[in-house]
């Protein structure tokens, strides 16, 4: 993409960073709408939920060429020509546990799309600690669980993946080496949004207020349409055209202020309400939002109305980052299954509760070992629990939903055989067992830990390949 590559700022006073995926499985058409719906400079796609890394690792174990978000490759083949033509650079954490394999596939997609010689693909590696855990523990990195205080050595045999949330540094390096597409493994989601700001505006990573502004922009951008009217509670019935909802676009300025907007003629709504709901989404202490590059203070955020579907953000401050990276470790922690049956009026809830009693007694008589058996009545208490009180006999229907968890796979397997029999052997007027037996699932638990940056940074590498 001639013109967009090369080092440093072109003296631009605004850049548009478009959010196009909030998780792997998000609206497949959104990235296309973002590229074609109006001017943007960068397209950022967040594919990696916590659980995704362990799933990808399992896939890679079966097929060494797998282990990344495969949807990204056909998407790039589809949008590559438009991105080259319009000078849109793409940043994605689609690399999962195999960023190299992903980058190679994107190079091939570019060739198939007819942009050979016109684009470069950058690649960030070094976030994956899975093969380094024994070495790290031997060198005194205990990778202690942040909440329980247990050392990782307690569960080392069960670990499936361990990845560091890298910061923006290596992404900025890839951009300055001329990458038009940057593929990463695990990195701080927000870094995919503010790395272009650092690159274009020449910000120093030591300028905590600017980087913190970028973090807030990234936080608003990283969950797709959740900032533009999707899943927005305030006056949700007035939000138009969610079928073609516009995904967020951050119009960033060199002073750290930015506007949240979306393409004209798209659905959804950008309002103070929609943006505020996203700012408070999945945060702890808002004055100390810890990221690899800065500790951002979300309490300093100022919002302004800047016209229809435009909300301005300014005033964000931050403090220097810590010497530590967050590590997300996934480990195998047993088995679970969930079974459901639907009971009809009259007295639907009482029938379901009576069936639950029968089921539990049978599980007990079988001598099965469970760490937990959990019963919910869908249609009554599965969302707000005991806050809703007791159902009357006139509730038209409820779904009995029973989940079990155990370290013993055989117990969970046997549980899955105990749901259907209730249809003929339990309380009456029950249906919806046609879906077959419940599926046994392996539980991947998470072990949040910290590791010193100097144990990771020497392993971080950036390279750029020609399409």
């Amino acid at each position, binding site marked *: 993409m001639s013109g967009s590559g090369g080092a440093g700022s072109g003296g631009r006073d605004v850049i548009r960073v478009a959010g196009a995926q909030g998780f792997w499985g998000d609206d497949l058409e959104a990235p296309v709408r973002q590229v074609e719906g109006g001017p943007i400079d960068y397209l950022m796609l967040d594919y990696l939920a916590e659980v995704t890394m362990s799933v990808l690792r399992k896939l890679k174990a079966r097929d060494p060429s797998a282990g990344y978000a495969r949807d990204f490759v056909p998407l790039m083949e589809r949008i590559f020509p438009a991105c080259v033509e319009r000078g849109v650079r793409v940043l994605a954490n689609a690399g999962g546990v195999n960023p190299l394999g992903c980058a190679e596939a994107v190079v091939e997609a570019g060739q198939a799309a007819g942009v050979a010689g016109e684009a470069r693909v950058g690649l960030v590696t070094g976030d994956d600690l899975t093969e380094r855990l024994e070495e790290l523990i031997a060198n005194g990195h205990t990778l202690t669980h942040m909440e329980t205080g247990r050392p990782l050595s307690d569960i080392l045999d069960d670990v499936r993946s361990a990845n560091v949330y890298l910061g923006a540094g290596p992404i900025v390096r890839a951009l300055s080496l001329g990458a038009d597409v940057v593929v990463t493994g695990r990195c701080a989601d927000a870094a995919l949004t503010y790395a272009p700001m650092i690159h274009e505006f020449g910000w120093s990573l030591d300028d905590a207020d600017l980087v913190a502004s970028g973090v807030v922009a990234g936080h608003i951008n990283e969950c797709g349409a959740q900032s533009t009217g999707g899943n927005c509670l305030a006056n949700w019935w007035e939000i138009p055209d969610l079928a073609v909802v516009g995904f967020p676009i951050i119009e960033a300025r060199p002073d750290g202020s930015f506007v949240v907007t979306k393409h004209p003629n798209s659905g959804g709504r950008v309002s103070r309400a929609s943006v505020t709901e996203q700012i408070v989404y999945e945060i702890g*202490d808002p004055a100390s939002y810890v990221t690899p590059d800065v500790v951002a203070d979300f309490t300093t955020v100022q919002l302004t109305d800047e016209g229809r579907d435009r909300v301005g953000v300014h005033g964000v401050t931050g403090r220097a980052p810590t010497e530590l990276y967050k590590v997300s470790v996934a480990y195998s922690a047993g088995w*679970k299954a969930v079974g459901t049956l639907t009971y009809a009026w009259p007295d639907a809830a009482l029938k379901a509760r009576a069936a639950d009693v029968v089921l539990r007694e049978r599980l007990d008589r079988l001598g099965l070992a469970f760490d937990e058996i959990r019963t919910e009545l869908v249609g009554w208490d599965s969302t707000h629990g005991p806050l809703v009180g007791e159902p009357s006999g006139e509730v038209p229907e409820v779904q009995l939903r029973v989940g079990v968890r155990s370290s013993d796979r055989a117990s969970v397997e046997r549980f899955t055989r105990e749901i259907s029999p209730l249809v003929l052997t339990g309380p009456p007027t029950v249906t919806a067992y046609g879906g077959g037996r419940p599926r046994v699932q392996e539980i991947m638990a998470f072990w949040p830990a910290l590791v010193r940056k100097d144990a990771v940074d020497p392993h971080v590498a950036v390279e750029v390949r020609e399409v």
Partner: protein
Amino acid sequence: MRSVQLVHLAHARSGDKGDTANVGVIAYEPEHYDLLVERLTPERVKRHFGTMIEGDVERYELPNLHALNFVLHGALDGGGTVSLMSDAQGKVLSTAILRMEIEVPDEVAEAVEGRGRVPAGWTPPSPRVHDG
């Protein structure tokens, strides 16, 4: 003073981090923020959720955004893929908190009547079908 359900005064969004959920509660009207700060103490919120939350409730203030952030420890049955809950990621705890009843001055109660709920008679529009 009158008792009013929080759903008429605030909107909210919730999410997860492991076994901890957070709920951001945002005043519809900036002038009601102080009332929320006064009424929605962490103790009151902890009492509201009762057995749904095993650990502590922490509260953080975001006055610029007229919002309070509640961090609910031990709210998700282990969280993530460990949890057996339908709502393992705490996505709908947002409206669970809005069930709370709080005492407000009569004029506030009158002003917020009906707010936060779908207007009577509203139904979703028909799908717009492509004709070409």
